[in-house]
């Protein structure tokens, strides 16, 4: 059963990167202001605010909604602070959706943010693991994602050289795409050889297979049908969503088939009435902090059969002009302010279906998927938006 229809009427992003020029609240305000300008409304028009970050020591501030009360334009309004690690951005969007769908509000501002250069991201991420068993050998994010990549190649008998070649192409395509996105952080031209010869972080993952630390914020404005039709000429409509989580202990679940990603996508497809995502989706913003992981996601999200994503990548299925362009924004691989990243995926998918994506626009995109992953490879969230209600 579907609740009230929910639209997105505006998005705003900061210029992501190393933002030494602004304080953390100023960074947040930059995205919020941009979203209000895009929607053509003022802070007085909103019924509430949802905000979140990767909940951690990252910036040395706890429960940031207090500090950001003024930056978020939320004084005198109801707020919700929702956080689920790397998948925070998608969880924030889901909260915005339910707030409107419930009838408890008509216009809600949703904001995700992270200023990673204030702290040590990998030290922070190591504290996601429990202090008794896993923390002693966890090496930040690359450690677990590498284990997953190895497990995946082994399970599906994928030739390591082929996977390496495909991962390098994924890196090249994302880095190329970032040049089309004025908000992207990393803008460097790389070749397949550059990627294959980059320094090893945790084998087989090399430096150019890995996302950066970014400072950035993203704001998205959700509205009810009535408000959206009144305020916005071309809103995007939420068609489906899903969020699933696995066991905490890394060794207990099968990361090569990744049930949380698979099931979250299935929930979203069921809700949106999508049966063949590769055919029906026009564009996807997949959360891709690591190239190998992006390929695993293609399989979990049903874009191709298990174990075959490297072949599809080599065929060019997911690059610009391919059958299903993925991450025309340059993706997480080129921009990763963690608490904002999942919401940036949503905002980018909204820009695509509303025809506002500028140089990174996929021609005629009507139906788009956005996605984020979080925890110790543990959580996956999906939102599907459409140009039609």
């Amino acid at each position, binding site marked *: *059963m579907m*609740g*009230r229809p929910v639209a997105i009427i505006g998005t705003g992003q900061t210029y992501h990167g190393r933002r030494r020029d602004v304080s953390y609240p100023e960074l947040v305000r930059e995205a919020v202001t941009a979203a209000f300008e895009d929607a053509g409304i003022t802070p007085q028009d909103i019924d*509430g605010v949802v905000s*979140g970050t*990767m*909940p*951690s020591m*990252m910036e*040395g*501030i*706890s*429960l940031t*909604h*207090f*500090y*950001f*009360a*003024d930056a978020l334009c*939320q*004084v*005198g*309004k*109801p*707020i*919700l*602070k*929702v*956080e*689920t*690690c*790397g998948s925070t951005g998608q*969880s924030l969007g889901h*909260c915005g959706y*339910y*707030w409107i*769908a*419930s*009838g*408890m509000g008509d216009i809600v501002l949703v904001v995700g943010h992270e200023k990673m250069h204030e702290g040590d991201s990998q030290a*922070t*991420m190591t*504290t*996601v693991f*429990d*202090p008794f068993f896993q923390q002693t050998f966890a090496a930040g994010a690359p450690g677990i994602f590498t284990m997953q990549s190895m497990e995946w190649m082994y399970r599906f008998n994928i030739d390591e050289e082929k996977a390496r070649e495909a991962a390098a192409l994924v890196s090249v395509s994302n880095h190329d795409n970032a040049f089309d996105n004025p908000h992207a952080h990393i803008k460097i031209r790389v070749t397949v050889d550059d990627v294959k010869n980059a320094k090893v972080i945790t084998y087989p993952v090399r430096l150019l297979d890995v996302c950066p630390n970014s400072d950035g914020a993203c704001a998205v404005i959700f509205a009810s049908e009535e408000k959206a039709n009144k305020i916005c000429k071309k809103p995007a409509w939420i068609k489906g969503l*899903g*969020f*699933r*989580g*696995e*066991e*905490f202990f890394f060794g207990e679940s099968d990361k090569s088939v990744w*049930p*949380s990603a698979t*099931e979250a996508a299935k929930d979203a497809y069921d809700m949106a009435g999508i049966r063949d995502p590769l055919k029906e989706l026009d564009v996807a913003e997949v959360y891709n902090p690591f190239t190998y992981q992006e390929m695993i996601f293609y399989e979990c999200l049903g874009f191709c059969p298990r174990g075959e994503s490297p072949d599809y990548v080599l065929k060019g299925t997911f690059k610009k002009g391919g059958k299903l362009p993925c991450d025309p924004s340059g993706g997480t691989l080129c921009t990763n302010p963690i608490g904002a990243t999942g919401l940036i995926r949503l905002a980018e998918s909204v820009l695509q279906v509303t025809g506002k994506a500028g140089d990174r626009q996929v021609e005629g995109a009507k139906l788009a998927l956005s996605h984020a992953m*979080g*925890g*110790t490879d543990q*959580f996956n969230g999906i939102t599907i938006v459409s140009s039609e209600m």
Partner: protein
Amino acid sequence: MRRVAIASMAQSSGGESRDSLMDFTFRVAKEALDKAGMTRGEVGCIMIGSSDIFHSGLSCSNSFDWDGTGAFMKEGSRAEESIFAFIYACMRIMSGQFDTVLVTSLVKGSENPDNDACTSFFADPFYLRPVGMNETTAAAMQMREYMLHYGITEEQCAKVVEKNLGNALYNPYAHIKKKVTVDDVLSSPIISDPLKALECAPKSDGVVSVLLASEKKVEELTNRPVWLKGYGCSIDHFYLGDRNLLAGELKTAAAAAYKMAGITNPKKEIDVAEICEPYAFQELLWCEQLGLCGDGEGGALIDSGVTQMTGTLPVNPSGGVLAMNPYVSRGLYRIVEAALQIRGSAGEHQVDKDVSMALAHGTQGFAGQCHSVVILKG
């Protein structure tokens, strides 16, 4: 908007638990499901109320909390505060997409630093943190202003402790069990002038679970549903100097909750209130802002005996936060205690009157920067 009811509840006691956090969480979440005769697999979605590294020693605490709350491979999410988790769970049911949501909030205070150490990280690192700002020092300034502005006395503030810890003696889940007098409170060491040690809440363990259900579904789960009637929330400016500490955003939150519940005279229509008072005087100030008495009349209110367990408007019959302060989950404890009073199943701390409408309140942040108000009805 679909109606939402509490179908079942469970809570842990506030004393130090010897269970691991995961087991500790699981037992309470399971109890709430068992009471409704439901299994984990049948629940529509799971909502967690927990906090980050400062309250658990773990970044992204939802990662660890996921298993114990029964969320494995379930649809779910997490809010950073327990009343946020509660209302988000209600929204999910109101949306029509779920018929049941299990909300669990957890914190093991005994395993992490003092509240003041944790709350000092709310402060910005440039202006407030270097001068030692935390919830206690902010509350001390608020208390001084409250006494100076309205002539509230230290004795009146101390009476709140005598009342609430007295009530806690009858609440099997309360953490602090100690009969204290006003003199005991006044002679306890000064923590941050004018706040005395016994006027400050302790740090407690606490896991609390609530199973929420849609109107259609709740009939199958209980014959004593407690309905959500009203909700309000509001946040104030961050810097204390930008705010009026005696007229904060609680009035805004309360007005929204009363409007939604159709309450025009809270003093008369509310039968019992569970108010979040981490510092004794705040119970008096919050009562004023909730409209349970006039501005500046909080002192007279406690003197009158109205808010005693036997009074016409009992406040914190459970003993409140002064008796038990699991920081993150304390708001949901207020909701559970209010619901128990409505059901008439609070046991020895059941109030002496019929309870139809109850108020639960939660607050966090310096001097009550953010407030939530929930109205429940039988």
